[in-house]
């Protein structure tokens, strides 16, 4: 029964990983950019959330309304000012630049917030849980995060397939030059894609903060989890990212069940196994 609980917790955790990974997946699908600072921005979102919660005395849920739009703007600016320029220099450059941003961000947070770890008080959300059996309970917070992940991914899929801007994003992802001669402002579209990606990063960062504690250096770990989720699920498919997140979450939960320190390593081993056996991932496809 404890194993079943582990699997369930793993699935719920997977939702969080998927929410976190879909921003990475979107940026890569549209711009071929892997943002190595992805995890650090999530941690930054958690710190901002903390500031909003303690400063304005609002609960976690309301803080998302402040932080997510802010991050969307930040994402747009990061794309137009930094990523766009790096894309024009060489493919190598975006990697180096986002890595540099990651290091700068981590150390800036270290200077600004000290190395102490914090966590976001999730208020009434964390308190409750559904007790299905004596060994199997589902926390309210985990369930809400999982539901949020599914909602975000479904909304993103719908946006990409139905909305005019979504269509432009897909067209630009296919062939940026052809999109520009069809009248699309490619840089603006890239900016919008980045804004969406960063908004999801903000949500994921806040969710993470409520789930477990965070400190300035936590971004690295989170980036690796997001990346593993994307690769396991299949690069270029949002549903794949959801599946990948769940597989990773379950692997980690089962690993932790075997031995409490083994969880993260179990995830890495599953990732390396997928890489060895099925490198294209479980559900490879396009970001549509």
């Amino acid at each position, binding site marked *: 029964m404890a194993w079943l609980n582990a699997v369930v917790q793993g699935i719920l955790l997977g939702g969080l990983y998927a929410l976190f990974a879909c921003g990475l997946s979107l940026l890569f699908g549209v711009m071929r950019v892997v943002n190595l600072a992805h995890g650090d921005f999530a941690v930054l979102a958690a710190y901002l959330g903390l500031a909003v919660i303690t400063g304005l005395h609002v609960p976690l849920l309301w803080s998302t309304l402040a932080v997510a739009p802010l991050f969307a703007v930040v994402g747009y600016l990061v794309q137009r000012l930094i990523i766009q320029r790096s894309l024009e220099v060489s493919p190598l450059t975006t990697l180096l630049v986002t890595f540099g941003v990651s290091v700068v961000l981590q150390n800036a947070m270290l200077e600004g917030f000290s190395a102490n770890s914090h966590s976001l008080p999730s208020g009434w959300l964390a308190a409750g849980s559904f007790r299905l059996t004596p060994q199997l309970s589902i926390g309210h917070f985990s369930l809400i995060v999982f539901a949020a992940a599914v909602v975000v991914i479904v909304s993103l899929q719908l946006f990409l397939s139905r909305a*005019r801007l979504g*269509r*432009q994003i*897909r*067209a630009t*992802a*296919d*062939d940026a*030059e*052809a*999109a*520009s*001669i*069809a*009248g*699309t*402002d*490619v840089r603006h579209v890239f900016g919008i894609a980045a804004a969406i990606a960063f908004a999801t990063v903000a949500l994921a960062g806040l969710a993470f903060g409520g789930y477990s504690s965070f400190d300035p250096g936590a971004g690295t770990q989170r980036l690796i989890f997001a990346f593993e989720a994307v690769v396991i699920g299949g690069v270029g498919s949002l549903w794949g990212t959801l599946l990948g997140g769940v597989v990773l979450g379950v692997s980690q939960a089962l690993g932790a069940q075997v031995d409490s320190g083994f969880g993260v390593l179990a995830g890495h081993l599953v990732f390396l196994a997928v890489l060895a056996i099925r490198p294209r991932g479980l559900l490879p496809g*396009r970001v*549509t």
Partner: protein
Amino acid sequence: MIGANGAGKSTLLRTLAGLHQPAAGSIHFAGREITHLPTHARVALGIALVPEGRRLFPSLTLEENLLVGARRSSAWTVSRVMELFPWMGARRRQLTLNLSGGEQQGVAIGRALMAGPRVLLLDELSLGLAPAAVRRIYDLLPSLLAEGMAILLVEQDVTQALRVSDLAHCLLEGRITLSGRPRDLSPEQVEAAYFRLAARA
């Protein structure tokens, strides 16, 4: 615009569309200088390019490909484009990779038309198409001209090009070697300008 391979015809069209920056000189359209205007802004002004190789969006359906080109102020709608190409109606939800070369060319032209252009830039329409398909595409051009649209056509097939155009230019190594109305140009003149045979004479 006719000329041998490497003369610079496609490069010229792409520069007009804004994909390349000219090293020198300027581009004017409807009394306005557009040399430094970005590509999408030129589309808004009324310049639409149908590029060499079609360049459709492989993961989008036929209808979506058309819709990407749409502009609010354009007189062209999806239904109007589908009147021009009746076969499109039945295949609107198909992915464009499954279409034949001639059909893809039709979609590419349709996508450019959706922007309601005042000038249509056509780059090597006949490349990779069966002769019947080429003829069908060319039969469309008069109706487009009747709308008041100007068409700048780059074409390797000299006979085809001279047949449909009002004004012809021959390009060789980036320079214009001959200009005039097709009916005023003799085959010898065209051949000489094409290959620069006059240099030998």
